[in-house]
């Protein structure tokens, strides 16, 4: 296999919003913390962008342990938005990431009520080093609020309007797959002013600990991620990208460069990598390299050629 460096001829850059990402691969929220740990493994500047852990107004301790379970080709998590709160993130985490000058930083924002989200976004708007916000209206692990925004188009639209009114940087809305009609949700967010969409967040699942006769996760249900959910994610990206005119970030089960190709062909402009980071700390850079090699072997000169390539061609 040729190394990433050897394949100068493939152009991996993709335009995304006002940015030009050096490649379409970014770690997914909650699967990379705030970058510090992985920086011990490789230079974060190699990433297309970074999406940090969900940030809420106040510090949160999340759910009780156990919070993780392994499932066939996937995993369940019920972290429950544990994070140090927006002030601490602004004070301690974002300055650290600002060192990486070639790394666009996307901050994932979560909360319980619209006012929380608005307040977090107002405070983040003071920070120069953020490239975009990702609104997490889809976390399955927070009981009160959270998920509702992600499953009701009216409420999602209201949320997006409220955020757009206070945000001074692009707003990406992250959609939940736990809905009857993903296209309806996407259109509601687009109409309300979303600059981009990312999908999918986790599917709601459960595992029973048969020895203890109770749900394995302390929280009962959790979010399903990993290769198992990829077909659902690809389907939703395909459907949504056929309906909206804003760019899409594909998420769900990306483990290899070919998985990136699959999401791009389905209509995504970029992808996020979640669970794969837990299996292999080098996952993102390996995937970028594999993407380059695949393009090279398939005569693809620019990765942008792949975006939407699996869609019916106009006039055919």
């Amino acid at each position, binding site marked *: 296999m040729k190394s990433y460096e050897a394949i100068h001829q493939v152009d991996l850059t993709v335009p995304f919003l006002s940015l030009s990402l050096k490649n379409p691969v970014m770690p997914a929220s909650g699967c990379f913390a705030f970058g510090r740990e992985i920086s011990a493994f490789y230079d974060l500047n190699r990433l297309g962008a970074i999406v940090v*852990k969900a940030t809420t107004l106040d510090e949160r301790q999340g759910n009780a342990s156990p919070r993780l379970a392994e499932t066939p080709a996937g995993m369940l998590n019920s*972290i429950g938005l544990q994070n140090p709160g927006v002030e601490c993130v602004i004070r301690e985490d974002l300055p650290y990431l600002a060192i990486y000058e070639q790394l666009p930083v996307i901050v994932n924002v979560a909360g319980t009520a619209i006012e929380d989200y608005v307040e977090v976004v107002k405070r983040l708007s003071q920070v120069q080093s953020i490239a975009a916000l990702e609104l997490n209206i889809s976390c399955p692990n927070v009981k009160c609020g959270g998920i509702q925004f992600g499953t009701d188009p009216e409420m999602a639209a209201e949320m997006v309007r409220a955020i757009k009114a206070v945000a001074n940087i692009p707003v990406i809305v992250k959609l939940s797959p736990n809905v009857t009609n993903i296209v309806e949700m996407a259109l509601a967010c687009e109409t309300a002013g979303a600059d981009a969409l990312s999908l999918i967040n986790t599917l709601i699942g459960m595992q029973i600990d048969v020895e203890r006769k109770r749900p394995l996760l302390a929280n009962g249900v959790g979010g399903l991620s990993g290769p198992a959910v990829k077909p659902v994610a690809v389907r939703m990206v395909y459907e949504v990208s056929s309906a909206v005119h804003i760019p899409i970030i594909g998420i769900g089960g990306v483990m290899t460069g070919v998985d990136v190709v699959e999401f791009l062909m389905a209509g995504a402009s970029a992808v996020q990598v979640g669970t794969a980071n837990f*299996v292999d700390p080098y996952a993102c850079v390996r995937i970028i390299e594999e993407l380059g090699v695949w393009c090279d072997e398939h005569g693809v000169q620019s990765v942008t050629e792949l975006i939407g390539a699996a869609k019916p061609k106009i006039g055919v």
Partner: protein
Amino acid sequence: MALVTISSHTRINADLYELTFTAPMDLQTTRYEPGQFLHIRVTDSFDFLLRRPLSLCKVDLLHNRLTVVYRVQGAGTKRLSTKQVGDALDVLGPLGRGYQIHKEDHASLLIGGGVGVPPLVELARQLHELGQMVHAVVGFQSSQQAILLSDLAQYGSVTVLTDDGSIGKKGIVTDVLRTEFCNGFDRYYACGPTPMLKAVQQVLRTADLPGYLSLEERMGCGIGICVGCVHPIMRDGHVANMKTCKEGPVFAAEEVVFS
């Protein structure tokens, strides 16, 4: 993360295996601590997507090898047990914060239960090397589950307890942790199932002996990015969920909050 080679793999008791492999780093130049763990992929199949954490048990500086000792608990460790000498093993680590060693101490009490015993072996070796008096109190279900007794005996005295009395005394580790006994030690180091740790913490708080507990939570990444492995820890008067893979698995006993 490294693909290393298995140099030995043997069944040492009922469902218990000892696995030795090339260290993923140079043991002469890289710092490691007893109580740290290795995060091991049992196969590259998605059937077992996550790594399994196993404690660093023994270190072979001469051949640059590490040993873990594990029990077949579920499907993943069962799969691990089928690996052969010469096979590649995908290992991340050693990870986390291990036991802190206090050079000024004279006598250390090591307390282990079941597959909580492995990390105590490298700990005992290091304490012994510092000239400390080491006493290990270890409990097992039965002789079928007893492990590493002769390893521990190299570095100090060993008291063995079993639930059924099939080896050592019949009883559980806290049975021997009377205050008079504990007074002879400067510090304790414990690893084992949560109920045991909870009982040990309580008994030795009464005995006023400081110590460390190594916690066992389900892990995802093992490196601090998934926030899946937390346990409530009390620091500076506040209880917070801390990552046992990064801030732990070893914590000062008085910090650990059990529900």
